[in-house]
């Protein structure tokens, strides 16, 4: 079922809101589309990475002499090939980056800090020679004790990853180093006072495991550095300008020397916003003076690319008997992996965002552990903290005997609500979403034996950022659109639709591409649910620039003042009869005269997009539990979310459904499993269990449309919010199906069965599995 619920009467659109075929579609269904590993350069070498077998070890020495002597080996790089970077936080598109850590993530220096940490890279004439060479590299390790989980890592006696790490955000500053990189705190009002007024207080502790984005396409790139130092990189990434910035910094090259082309990208979800292979490939190419291709194996993707944090979360919520929440408090301990930078800050800021609260306090800790450095994953940080808060809200609704939707409606944030992270919300669609859930056939449907139904809300900020779009009017009146935010799931379709709507031309007349870093101005990456919002805004500006210029050319040709011409239904016309009789001209006519009236016509927009608006979602999940095995099956699922306005509803629905599926995996089966030796035991899709087609039901969607007043077409970001509610919604469904509440993810069969048995044993007492 796909539905749409509109706040305002539908504006009349010709293209927006329809469901045309995507412009990049044909190549993707015929196998012609070129993804990261599909690109080939003449004479290219194969690059491979030697990785640490230890979770934590001092690297005493690296001897590459035997490998270098192997016929077919053309270049080897180690820590010695990358100059060290000082500890300094610099804005590099994606939040703040400390290049001291980036250079160490790409190639270990003093220590290997996680199993899979790169220690050397080889370029050779063939895969088999490269593999052979890796075996010949001798690394002398001094193995050190490791620590894997945030709570352990915070203990005073825990093994130290960085002996100079002094916790930031604590006054007075600690004198001793620890694994706690940062303490953050967000507070509104006075929680102590709030809790005093509460009739009911619920306090719970939750634990979640790291989960991987699970994109099906492994990281891959080809790099080629010519003798004059100019470099080409072909790579699968969410942000090729970010790849350029990082590579230039790590290699000490001018940005202008590096041209990065984004291939088609086979999924990212935040995981392709950082560099792993690219600087290595460039360094190997420079040394070997040949093109170097590097592709990660699936095992490398799991061992060495960033999942999102596992965490320990404590939540306390107080409410009146009537359901009004009077105070909320939480402590978040997020593991960052080997280097600081977990998403604990957005986790703190979003934890209570769906609610209108007077008194809130959230404290977060960014904790390093001997795991791969985390990378962004869809609404980074929010799914973990909101899972915990929503689970307590669900328990509150049971305790107070108030319907979970009613309880949320009583406390829901709306326009003007002071968000728990400070500022007031503009127009938002949470209440509309909750009401749509209440009215949905799913919410009213009867349940079968061993089935339970859960509901949860979710929030994400969404962002804008630096964006450039170029729209060229071709000689025949067709248009070429160049955008710079990689298209992960239908962006090119949405951009063309917005341009066609503005220009009154057929969609088929516009051919979009994702331009390389030398052909277009700077673009921040595809992330933060910004691409349709920001590149859309720039596309509209570029289209309007073309219209403006078209009017100028017509006025010149007709020899009438510019204000005597007007643009209507895709044509330039005389504004009125007094402007004289002139044949209206469409873009085709304008294109013909462009050269003779001043030259080519190009609409260009280079902006920092502002006005991004948050998107709230509400998910309903039905789970059926096999009481004898503890296995949960999701039997029905509905996603309700505010899109602002859906440009191409099919791809909005796709984001809702895909986020829900990832969340269901997170809730039920996905987890990193490490042995006591600090080695990952499930680095593959066999035992890292993402949902398969037969695990899921159809996922119904209801698109709520409360337009964002700051976007020409009312667009909000929508990509990230869908992964926020599922864990709590599924947990609530499991609770209602079994009578047992679980406080740990994933709710895998052994845990659920044990919970059910323990509950029976202690006469229905709550399990704390």
């Amino acid at each position, binding site marked *: 079922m796909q539905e749409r619920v509109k706040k305002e009467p539908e504006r009349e659109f010709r293209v927006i809101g329809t469901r045309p075929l995507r412009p990049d579609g044909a190549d993707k269904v015929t196998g012609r589309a070129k993804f990261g590993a599909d690109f080939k350069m003449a004479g290219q070498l194969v690059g491979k990475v030697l990785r640490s077998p230890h979770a934590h070890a001092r690297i005493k020495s690296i001897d590459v002499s035997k490998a270098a002597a192997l016929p077919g080996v053309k270049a080897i790089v180690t820590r010695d090939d990358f100059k060290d970077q000082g500890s300094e936080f610099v804005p590099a598109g994606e939040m703040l980056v400390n290049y001291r850590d980036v250079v160490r993530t790409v190639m270990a220096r003093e220590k290997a800090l996680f199993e899979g940490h790169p220690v050397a890279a080889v370029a050779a004439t063939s895969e088999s020679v490269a593999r052979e060479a890796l075996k010949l590299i001798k690394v002398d390790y001094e193995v050190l004790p490791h620590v894997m989980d945030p709570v352990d890592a915070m203990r005073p006696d825990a093994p130290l990853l960085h002996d100079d790490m002094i916790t930031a955000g604590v006054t007075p500053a600690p004198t001793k180093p620890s694994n706690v990189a940062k303490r953050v705190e967000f507070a509104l009002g006075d929680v102590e006072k709030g809790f005093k007024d509460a009739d009911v207080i619920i306090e719970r502790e939750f634990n979640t495991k790291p989960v991987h984005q699970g994109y099906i396409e492994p990281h891959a790139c080809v790099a080629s550095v010519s003798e004059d130092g100019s470099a080409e990189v072909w790579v699968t990434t969410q942000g090729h300008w970010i790849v350029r910035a990082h590579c230039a910094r790590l290699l000490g090259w001018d940005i202008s020397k590096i041209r990065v082309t984004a291939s088609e990208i086979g*999924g990212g979800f935040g995981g392709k916003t950082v560099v792993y292979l690219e600087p290595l490939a460039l360094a190997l190419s420079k040394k070997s003076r040949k093109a170097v291709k590097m592709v990660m194996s699936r095992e490398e993707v799991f061992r060495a690319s960033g999942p999102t944090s596992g965490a320990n979360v404590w939540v306390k919520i107080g409410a009146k008997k009537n359901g009004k929440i009077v105070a909320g408090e939480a402590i978040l301990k997020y593991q960052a992996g080997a280097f600081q930078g977990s998403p604990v800050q957005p986790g703190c800021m979003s934890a209570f965002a769906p609610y209108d609260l007077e008194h809130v306090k959230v404290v977060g800790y960014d904790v390093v552990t001997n795991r791969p450095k985390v990378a962004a994953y869809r609404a980074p940080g929010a799914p973990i903290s909101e899972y915990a808060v929503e689970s307590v809200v669900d328990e509150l609704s049971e305790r107070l005997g108030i319907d979970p939707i009613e309880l949320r409606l009583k406390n829901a944030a709306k326009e003007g609500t002071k968000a728990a992270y400070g500022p007031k919300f503009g127009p938002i669609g949470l209440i509309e979403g909750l009401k749509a859930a209440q009215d949905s056939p799913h919410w009213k449907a009867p349940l079968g034996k061993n089935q339970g139904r859960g509901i949860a809300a979710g929030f994400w900020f969404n962002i804008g950022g630096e964006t450039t779009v170029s729209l060229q009017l071709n000689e025949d009146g067709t248009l070429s659109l160049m955008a710079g935010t990689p298209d992960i799931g239908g962006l090119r379709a949405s951009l063309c639709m917005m341009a066609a709507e503005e220009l009154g031309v057929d969609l088929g007349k516009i051919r979009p591409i994702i331009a390389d870093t030398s052909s277009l101005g700077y673009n921040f990456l595809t992330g933060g649910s910004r691409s349709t919002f920001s590149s859309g805004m720039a596309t509209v500006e570029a289209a309007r620039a073309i219209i403006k210029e078209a009017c100028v050319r017509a006025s010149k040709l007709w020899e009438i003042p510019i204000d005597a011409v007007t643009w209507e239904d895709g044509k330039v016309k005389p504004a009125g009869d007094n402007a004289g009789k002139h044949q209206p001209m469409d873009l085709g006519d304008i294109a013909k005269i462009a050269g003779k009236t001043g030259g080519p016509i190009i609409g260009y927009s280079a902006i920092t997009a502002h006005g991004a608006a948050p998107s709230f979602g509400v998910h309903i999940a039905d789970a059926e539990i096999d009481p004898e095995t503890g296995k949960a099956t999701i039997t029905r699922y509905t996603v309700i979310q505010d899109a602002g306005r859906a440009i191409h509803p099919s791809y909005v629905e796709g984001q809702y459904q895909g986020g829900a599926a990832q969340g269901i995996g997170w809730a039920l089966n996905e987890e990193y499993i490490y042995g006591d030796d600090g080695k990952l035991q499930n680095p593959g899709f066999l035992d890292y269990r993402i949902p398969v087609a037969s695990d899921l039901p159809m996922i119904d969607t209801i698109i709520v449309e409360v337009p964002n007043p700051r976007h020409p077409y009312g667009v909000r970001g929508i990509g990230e919010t869908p992964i926020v509610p599922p864990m709590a919604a599924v947990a609530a469904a499991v609770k209602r199906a079994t009578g047992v509440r679980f406080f740990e993810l994933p709710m895998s069969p052994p845990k659920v069965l044990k919970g059910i048995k323990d509950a029976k044993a202690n006469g229905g007492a709550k399990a704390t599995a």
Partner: protein
Amino acid sequence: MAKHHVATTVNGDAVEFLCETEQTLLDCLREELDLTGAKEGCSSGDCGACSVMIDNRLVCSCLVLGVEANGKSIETIEGMADGEELHPLQRKFLEHAALQCGICTPGFLVASKALLAKNPNPSETEVRYWLAGNLCRCTGYDKIVRAVMDAATEMRGA
């Protein structure tokens, strides 16, 4: 040691290539024949992105040695469309927006075609179980399943 000489048929065309014993059929299609439609998502048979047909049998080409292809008939995504005419499955995948990033799409299409050849009128459950070996991380499978069932209806002329 010397490479193996392999003579096979790919999408109806006779082709020959040389490969090392270690090379999988997927490696050979992508590197020796430049047919990059089949993707490597895991190289362990868990994701289905490398799905191809060998003698009308659906397999993961990452779990077949290139040398095993000798004398066999192989069909890949590159051979699915009939000239300019997309296969109904390809069309339905586009109409239903059954792809987001598109990396898994060739594997899903090859596997779905094999399903409809065997079972022209599959139930939703049959589609889901047949395609359980093809991972998609973007779509939640909903639109893929709808596209396959819609294509089946069209192909049955119903």
